[in-house]
């Protein structure tokens, strides 16, 4: 089985892997829309959607009822509705750009997945081999480069809609994303200062970051970077909220003052594409955050994947190890997505000037200071060690 896949043509293998990853990320992004409704309900003391059920499922004892109460079929109903609803095209829009904007939203959202490792297995020699679609050296840089293209879809959507609220939304969005991208990038520099040592080939690979966090107890390598660099993690997280346009930085939609922001003129399937893109961004962003600061596929601090494999005696089972690592990683990512929603249903939105002030006068100086301090400390440590 494993050999059959290993002997496939690389292009076909890549296509298969890509399809497999899309088949995971797309349902997650879709399910997030239902999770959002359920989490908001639970946080507010409500039940959330729990009525829809497919008749055949009602015959299954417990499971059918449980899925109904979880709102799983509401998700299908939502999807069906958005798919079959009339898709109006307003007369005043620039039709070409209006049509392609949702597609452009999807492309960077799904492309970033290619360079994010989502699991690992141990090969015969006991080395950790990451599971990812494209193990590129630029790693995180590729994520940043592609993810920031997502803003073009919002600018296009806002501009092509040819009405003032979408336009204001997209202008705000572009200003906000540019402001927070700076802090986002600078906040992760200490991480790469730490893993790049003199005399070794330079790397920006996320796999190396996880390796850094895969030590066993006495070594501080086992400590997840969130404990080593809490300020970096905090800045990254806040900037991530802004980059994914989640509350409290929901400038781009701001239902209260901009109707719906950039997607005011959109409806049915095109509108839902924007949402799938937003949730994919969230998923990938959470994934990168988990890889950088929360130990990736290592279950606990000082308990790396290799140790767990050793305990369970799974050395000869790379597929099983890979599955375990993916489950661990996905669990962390899903918790992060829950955290995104938790914050959204807790804090109100910042005012636009507050967003700008936090970005330029709060996070940016803080991230610069953080960078300088860690650069000094790391330089001293490397000199001493």
């Amino acid at each position, binding site marked *: 089985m494993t050999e059959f896949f290993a002997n496939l043509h690389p292009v076909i293998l890549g296509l298969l892997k890509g399809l497999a990853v899309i088949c995971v990320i797309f349902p997650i992004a879709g399910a997030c829309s239902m999770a959002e409704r359920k989490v908001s309900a639970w*946080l507010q*003391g409500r*039940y959330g959607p729990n009525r829809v059920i497919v008749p055949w499922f009602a015959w299954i004892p417990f499971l059918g009822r449980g899925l109904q109460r979880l709102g799983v079929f509401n998700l299908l109903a939502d999807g069906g509705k958005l798919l079959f609803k009339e898709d109006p095209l307003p007369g005043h829009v620039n039709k070409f750009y209006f049509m392609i904007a949702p597609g452009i939203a999807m492309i960077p959202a799904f492309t970033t997945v290619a360079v994010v490792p989502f699991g690992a297995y141990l090969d015969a020699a006991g080395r950790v081999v990451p599971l990812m679609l494209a193990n590129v050296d630029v790693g995180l840089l590729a994520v940043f480069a592609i993810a920031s293209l997502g803003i073009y879809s919002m600018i296009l959507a806002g501009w092509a809609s040819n009405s003032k609220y979408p336009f204001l939304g997209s202008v705000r969005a572009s200003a906000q994303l540019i402001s927070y991208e700076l802090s986002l990038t600078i906040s992760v520099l200490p991480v790469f200062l730490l893993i790049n040592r003199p005399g070794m080939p330079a790397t920006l690979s996320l796999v190396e970051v996880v390796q850094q966090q895969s030590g066993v107890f006495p070594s501080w390598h086992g400590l997840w970077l969130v404990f080593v660099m809490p300020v970096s993690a905090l800045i990254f997280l806040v900037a991530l909220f802004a980059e994914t346009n989640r509350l409290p930085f929901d400038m781009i939609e701001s239902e209260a003052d901009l109707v719906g922001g950039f997607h005011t003129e959109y409806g049915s399937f095109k509108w839902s594409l924007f949402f799938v893109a937003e949730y994919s961004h969230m998923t990938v962003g959470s994934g990168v955050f988990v890889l950088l600061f929360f130990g990736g596929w290592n279950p606990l601090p000082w308990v790396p994947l290799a140790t767990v494999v050793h305990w369970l005696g799974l050395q000869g089972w790379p597929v099983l190890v890979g599955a375990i690592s993916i489950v661990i990683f996905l669990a962390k990512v899903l918790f992060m997505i829950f955290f995104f929603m*938790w*914050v959204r*249903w*807790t804090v109100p939105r910042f005012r636009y000037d507050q967003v700008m002030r936090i970005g330029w006068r709060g996070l940016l100086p803080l991230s610069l200071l953080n960078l300088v301090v860690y650069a000094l400390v790391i330089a001293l440590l490397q000199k001493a060690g």
Partner: protein
Amino acid sequence: MAVIHVERKPLTFAERTYLPQVFGGLLITLKHFFAPRVTLEYPEQRPEISPGYRGVPTLVKDPNGREKCVSCQLCEFVCPPKAIRITPGEIPADAPAAHVEKAPLEFEINMLRCIYCGLCEEVCPEEAIVLQNVYSLCGYSRDELVNNKEKLYELGGTLPDRHFKWDKKKEAAGHGNAHA
């Protein structure tokens, strides 16, 4: 009026970072996450209707099963949206309730007009029309939502009062309306 000067303290550093407040808020919402739900799942669970609730107006009978309405038409006159229409009728001389003045031949309340103000109940000298606890009313057509006499008595049931006003009146008439 005295002017009260409220001292507005400048925000502390911790407050200006927003973070303690955000984490406090997260704890509050987390508490609600685990707290019991407050939602009433409507069709299965029904709200408790308090006494004095003004639901759908109905007609009631007395414990002897006699219709209490004497078609005086006061409710029809008082009804602000003119939802009530009464056709007064005679009571046949051989009926058990022949001593009662009148009875409605037809009594219609148009629930599309009714505003549930309860003035009909207030004005009724016979306590014959009562707004009870029926709160969910629907129909497929306009005609369905005009409650006729039969429907109104079906909804209303019996009012277990012990007045027996007309029986006492008949009894009093029996011995010359003398004060007891």
